[in-house]
């Protein structure tokens, strides 16, 4: 705490951000929470129905649970790509001697392209009729038997819609993790090497524990962004085929704006908020416990 601070100065500095935040985020959240106890189509009178929306969501709506399972899969794939991939690439980048700055910029590029263009591109990449690059590549590698319409196959579509989202932000996480890796004291690594530790042991015993705080931050960022994922699945498959790539977020959007069931859509939003809070809690729990 700053010794010379006054109560007034705290208020002066805190008030503008609080006002903005309250007007744009808190108020609509509270409004959604209230709406979740109503049945409302936007144009007729609102009807208070108590917990009926929650009851329907938890016990009477198999589509909802399907989308929840999909969302978990989506998060898992995004995390593997963004955190796992990011860590591997960051480690590799650390061995590089020249051109690292340029490469870091190049890695960030996909983030600037609009999702509309990305969705269109990946639709081509996954295509089989006409044959797209992925299926061509499989053919070249002698895996012709694995060729398939990736976005139409109910078994592969979830992975196929998750991958572009994971890929877009690999650069971001690579850079963050790379910076963290640079802070690992080299003397520690050298000492371990002299003790005969191999690369893997150095990584798990020395590097990773050292970057754990950063890992925690990036995990929270990546998880919550993935739980909010919307654009690419919506544009690429619109949830299909069937509900194979429908996420909780796209389902909520459709419930609100296709079915005009704002009450139920708000219930699903409340679930998304809770889901994110639980996820962050779990991450903190797991990573803190390991650290002790």
């Amino acid at each position, binding site marked *: *705490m700053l010794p010379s601070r006054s109560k007034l100065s705290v208020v002066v500095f805190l008030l503008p951000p609080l006002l903005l935040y309250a007007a744009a985020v808190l108020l609509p*959240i509270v409004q959604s929470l209230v709406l979740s106890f109503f049945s409302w189509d936007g144009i007729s009178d609102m009807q208070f129905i108590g917990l009926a929306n929650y009851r329907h969501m938890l016990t009477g709506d198999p589509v909802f649970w399907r989308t929840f399972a999909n969302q978990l899969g989506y998060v898992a794939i995004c995390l593997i790509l963004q955190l796992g991939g990011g860590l591997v690439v960051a480690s590799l980048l650390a061995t*590089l001697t020249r051109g690292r700055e340029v490469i870091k910029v190049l890695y960030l590029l996909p983030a600037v392209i*609009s999702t*509309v*263009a990305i969705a269109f591109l990946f639709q081509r990449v996954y295509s089989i009729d006409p044959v797209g690059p992925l299926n061509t590549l499989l053919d070249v590698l002698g895996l012709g038997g694995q060729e398939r319409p990736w976005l139409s196959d109910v078994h592969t579509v979830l992975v196929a819609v998750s991958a572009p989202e994971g890929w877009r932000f690999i650069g971001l996480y690579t850079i963050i993790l790379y910076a963290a890796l640079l802070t690992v004291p080299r003397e520690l690594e050298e000492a371990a090497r002299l003790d005969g530790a191999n690369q893997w042991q150095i990584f798990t015993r020395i590097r990773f524990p050292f970057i754990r705080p950063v890992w925690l*931050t990036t995990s929270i960022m990546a998880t919550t962004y993935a739980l*909010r994922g919307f654009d690419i699945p919506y544009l690429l498959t619109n949830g299909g085929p069937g509900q194979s790539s429908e996420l909780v977020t796209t389902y909520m959007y459709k419930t609100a704006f296709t079915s005009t069931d704002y009450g139920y859509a708000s219930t699903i939003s409340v679930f*998304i908020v809770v889901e*994110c809070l639980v996820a962050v809690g779990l991450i903190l729990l797991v990573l803190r416990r390991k650290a002790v």
Partner: protein
Amino acid sequence: MSTRILTRPQPSATRSAPPAGQPAAARRGPNLYRVLSRVIIWVLVVVQVYPLVWVFLTSLRDERDFASGNPFGLPSSLTLDNYSRAFAHGHLGRYIANSLIVTLGSNLLIVVCGMMGAYALQVLGFRFSNAVRAMFLVGIIVPVQIALVPLFIDYSKINLLDTYPSMIIPLAGFALPMAIYLFSSFYGYIPRETYEAASLDGAGPYRIFARITLPLSVNTIVTVVMVNSIFIWNDFIFANTFVLSDNLKTIPLGLQNYIGAMGKTDWTATFAAVCVTVTPLLLVFLVLNRAMIYGLESGATKG
């Protein structure tokens, strides 16, 4: 005093240039490992850069060539026709100007409010600061879609619909938590003694903010601005919900002009428009990338 701050060890600068050749790894690790890692790095560069190149090449394709030819091959002939269609069917200049206004306006709000909030939470400190911090963190998590209907009705009540603020306020509001988080991490970096010394010199909280915190925040500001600009520049959902008139349309709404009857899309013109509209963002990105990456890194290493 200021020299002391500036010479504070910079996290990446200290270790960003390890001795050339990494002798340890070179001696021990088999050459195969090094070659393999180079290959992976460059393959990934191709994977990351290719989409942008692809969008650009497609924007130069003839429509028929695009429809029937191999979309990944080189175009059989180059044409600027798509660009003339892109400019003819939409007021691209207008859209870019609107996107600039919205992006700059939101960023201004995000940066000012973000710095103030972080300063109050991290530097000034107060009794319920942890609760307030947690409340802001909730915003990182909340999906923006839930705010659409309530905000729309609120805005229509106060006649804010179809104005720049109707886009700027929610865009800034939803980006604020992340900004506060990044600024707070960075402010946690500035050593206590700096503030204490300044306080002893008789500086109040406002002067400390203006003289110490603000000048030191430049890199973080750039990071916050860049990360948010990427999202705001491409935002569709708020713009589509709150904007009605043509002269307020931003780029993502403008891209819709290439959609024809029953969902038929003029893709080559769309990509031409994407190329035109991504250029300002890309230029800023290329110019400011060092500061941005530095900001990301310093935010990260604080953890």
